């Protein structure tokens, strides 16, 4: 069973989506490592190292996602998991912005996949499967 690290980054306490993601991915057959809300980049990375997870799903709902996610890829590289898959979703920036631009910003920051607001986790499942070579 492959492990997936999930959590909500930064000073963000939105817990509902996180619980739904845990439930859905567990049902889909993954070993879900949920580090919960108010998690730092380090929390995510440590959890991934510990459980040998090939993928990290970062949630950010509250608007500070851009600040909170900066440098995360570099930290992964430093920690020796430079090729871990990084997904991010939720309401990752402040306000209604053109999502093409937002995506580019996060891709530049080293995220492999970037989801617009309200994308239900079910819709991301096929991406996960594909990226994990399943």
């Amino acid at each position: 069973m492959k492990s997936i690290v999930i959590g909500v980054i930064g000073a963000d306490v939105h817990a509902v989506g996180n619980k739904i993601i845990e439930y859905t991915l567990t049902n889909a057959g993954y070993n879900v490592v949920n580090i919960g809300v108010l998690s730092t980049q380090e929390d995510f990375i440590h959890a991934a190292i510990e459980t040998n997870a090939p993928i990290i799903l970062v949630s950010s709902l509250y608007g500070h996602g851009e600040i909170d996610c900066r440098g995360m890829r570099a930290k992964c590289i430093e920690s020796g998991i430079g090729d871990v898959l990084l997904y991010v979703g939720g309401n990752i920036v402040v306000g209604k912005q053109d999502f093409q631009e937002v995506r580019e910003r996060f891709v530049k920051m080293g995220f492999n996949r970037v989801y617009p607001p309200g994308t239900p986790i079910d819709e991301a499942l096929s991406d996960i499967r594909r990226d994990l070579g399943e």
Partner: protein
Amino acid sequence: MTTPLRNRKMSLEDFLEERKQVLSGWKTGSDPDLDLDRAVAYLRTVPDSKNFAKKLAAAKADGRTLVQPRAGVPVLEEHIKLLRHLQASGADFVPTTIDSYTRQNRYVEAENGIKESAEQHRAMLNGFPAVNHGVAGCRAVLEAIDVPVQARHGTPDARLLAEIIHAAGWTSNEGGGISYNIPYAKSVSLETTIRNWQYVDRLVGYYEDHGISINREPFGPLTGTLVPPSISNTVAICEALLAAEQGVKNITVGYGMGGNVIQDVAAIRTLLKQTEQYLHKYGYRDIVVTTVFHQWMGGFPADEAEATGLIAMSSTVAALSKATKMITKSPHESIGIPTAEANGLGVKASKFVCTLLKDQVFPDCSALNKEMAQIEREVDCLMTAVLVVGEGDLAVGVVRAFEQGLLDVPFAPSKFNAGKILPARDNDGCIRILEFGNLGFSEEIKQFHRGKIAERAAYEKRPISFQLTIDDVNAVSRGQLIGRGKEKR
């Protein structure tokens, strides 16, 4: 702090002693305008039309539902522009939503956020960092507009924030030791937050003692997600009692719309009734209680027309429930912090409905009475549980009740919340409970809930499980109230 937590008014000395430390939390705490005499003098100059407490009391007497949006941006001038726009759109009260760094007392990051926002000409923070802006900044806000101002946040330790905003003439502060902890924090103990909010309330009590009316508003909706009314009402009543003990005289208890019209009206009515009852019962008699109805607090539909539909539908229910105030949402809700324009649209649509319906009330009827009686029974049951485990002390009772899961809030991030209960809708869309954990309900009440959920599951021809809860969480943003199973979609 060495004294054990108790629901007892802080002595003036203890308060002033603690105050020194609070004000030293960030550089803006040393502003001379934070001198209490100067602050009182300033607050005396705030006209009644900008006094939250007075405007609410008048609205209650008139039977009107006033409207208030949420809004806050990091840069002062931009924030003022935003509030002016909302006022022009018809907001009866303006808010100032505080950013999430300030909520965690991370003032350094907030400072960076202000700078970066100014440089990049777009908001990098999700609110207005009032502590960083200090008394002068907050007064500039108040002076730029003509209606009362309130801070809205979600801050476990809002002591410094409260000091600054009140000294700046903002006459209301949202929050409470439970409601700004359980949904907003992960590892801050309830003991700590109740203490912090006793301080915040004691500050308001100080002002009341000096003839300044200030409103306090426990945050009613909690996680905003399928919270059964009896649970949020119980929390509101506990916070009202805790605030009253510290000398607060003007309290607005809140509720987040559930979606079943009768349950929503019943919730607002019982909230007012039982809050007043409990305050009287415990000897707080000179307190003005008003209510606030939050438009749908869960996940919103992405489509702006649908979102506006939901906003106006919420307003219809709020107006008929005779809530004193309503917190509005915007058509951008599901996407992100709204532009001033989108926020103003939400205010306009909401205000229009509330004004149109101002002379109407939801009629008394047996369905409503039944739901009210049910909520009252449940609240009494939970309040008793709290006071029993507290051995008569409410503050202690709250801490222990959460510890033991006698009080439990669904979907809350806090590790001091048991997180064992699972809510789901019944066949009429009322929020009921599917899994009780250790919730302080009597067996009779549990039977009622079980029966209601069983009825729905039978109708949908599927087993009673967490899937009901999940489907209900997702339902509204997909245009349904009840997350029906495949059979009945």
